[in-house]
């Protein structure tokens, strides 16, 4: 009967009675609301138990809604409502609701605990040598309940390149993230990256690989079957050998038409035997890099 709040009263005496009734209801409600109070925690840390103070008397239903938790229990008003640690693991906003004949609510926030792990993302997993700002890393500190630690902490990034170069860069987190960029070294090989925060340490490896082939050169010699064409050891401009399996395209153009073969590099060189009829022009390419041309005259 308390839910009927909208009334029209053409009769003055009836209206006066309704007004008195409503006022009485309001007074009762107000007096009930004043009796029940909730005082939520002000500085709750994830994974630490806490409590909510209540006033009033009697029984009520207590609801706690959090980012990873929902519970409902009967409580006695006027006592503390204990919030065990496992209910407060997730950082975020919690809503505490106390319902008797009416419901009251209060919200509070739980912040992340101290860092217990680091998520460290490094890219790329393979990088050509001698590239500016080629390697980047991003680190996020998390507490042991997988909450992002938003309070500033300092992450120390260390990079050890193959060939001996190393750098160290302490970086404070902003909005819970720290990041860095670095160049790739001159020499192919594994680059070690470490992100540290106190006792926490995470290691990643970036493979530095040779860049595009440089000074791609071929030589040829006649054989019984045709022409054996072979590259010189294929290296990039820093002298790093281009990995085996890299494709080198040999092209022979002669009176019989054009012939092409895509050959993978093996043990640093690529070679092919062409059934070429002289005269012929033989050229080589790898990716978008062109090599030299050989002109073979008529036999």
């Amino acid at each position, binding site marked *: 009967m308390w839910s009927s709040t909208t009334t029209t009263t053409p009769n003055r005496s009836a209206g006066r009675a309704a007004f008195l009734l409503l006022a009485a209801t309001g007074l009762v409600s107000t007096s009930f609301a004043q009796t029940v109070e909730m005082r939520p925690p002000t500085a709750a840390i994830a994974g630490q138990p806490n409590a909510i103070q209540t006033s009033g008397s009697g029984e009520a239903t207590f609801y706690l809604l959090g980012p990873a938790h929902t519970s409902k229990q009967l409580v006695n008003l006027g006592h503390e409502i204990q919030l065990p640690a496992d209910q407060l693991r997730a950082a975020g906003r919690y809503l505490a609701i106390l319902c008797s004949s009416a419901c009251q609510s209060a919200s509070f926030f739980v912040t992340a605990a101290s860092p217990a792990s680091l998520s460290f993302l490094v890219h790329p997993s393979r990088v050509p040598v001698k590239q500016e700002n080629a390697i980047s890393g991003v680190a996020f500190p998390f507490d042991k309940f997988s909450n992002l630690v938003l309070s500033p902490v300092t992450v120390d990034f260390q990079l050890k390149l193959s060939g001996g170069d190393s750098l160290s860069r302490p970086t404070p987190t902003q909005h819970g993230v720290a*990041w860095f960029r670095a160049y790739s070294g001159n020499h192919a090989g594994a680059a070690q990256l470490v992100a540290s925060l106190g006792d926490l340490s995470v290691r990643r490896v970036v493979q530095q690989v040779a860049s595009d082939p440089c000074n791609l050169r071929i030589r040829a010699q006649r054989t019984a079957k045709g022409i054996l064409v072979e590259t010189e050891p294929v290296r990039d401009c820093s002298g790093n050998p281009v990995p085996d399996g890299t494709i080198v395209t040999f092209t022979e153009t002669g009176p019989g038409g054009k012939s092409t073969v895509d050959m993978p590099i093996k043990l640093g060189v690529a070679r092919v035997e062409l059934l070429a009829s002289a005269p012929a022009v033989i050229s080589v390419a790898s990716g978008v890099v062109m090599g030299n041309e050989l002109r073979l005259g008529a036999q």
Partner: protein
Amino acid sequence: MTRHVLAPGTMVMLALLSLFLLSFRAGAADFSPASTPQIEINPVNSGPRAMEALTQQNVVRHYGRAWQSLADAFDRNTLVSLNDYFVGAAKDQLTGTVKEQQRTGIHSRYLDQRHMVDVVFYAPEGDVVMLHDTVQCDLEVYDGDKSIHTEPAVLHYVVLMTPGADRWVIRQLQAVPQF
């Protein structure tokens, strides 16, 4: 005993009415209280990498769908809705909450969502983005059919999103008192 026989025209009308009611009921399942969230994104502060226009569109679209599925999951206490746009800690936490809501008979509604999203970090390789989201919505909590809490809420979230196979997904969704 009197036998009542319906006229053919009346039977046709009843058949049409029943078809209409059936389709109405089928469609009623779509009339969920979780309406489409409105998202406004501000990429001006994004760094160290500037967010491309196409990426902004995709992030907005997928973030909106994530919130829509979150609202659906919390209202109907269904876990299926969380599979598409949530991974990692965010998914674990939301799944735990929905399961406990199922157990306690509680469900909550996030209605009329309006999101003001600031891009505060976009990784150099574009593989993670951090958003600060100020959400205005009507938050309602029910125990069964009884409403136990209603508030016009303003919530602040720190969000981590990463690119999945064909969409951006939420990896971390953490509420804070302010930014």
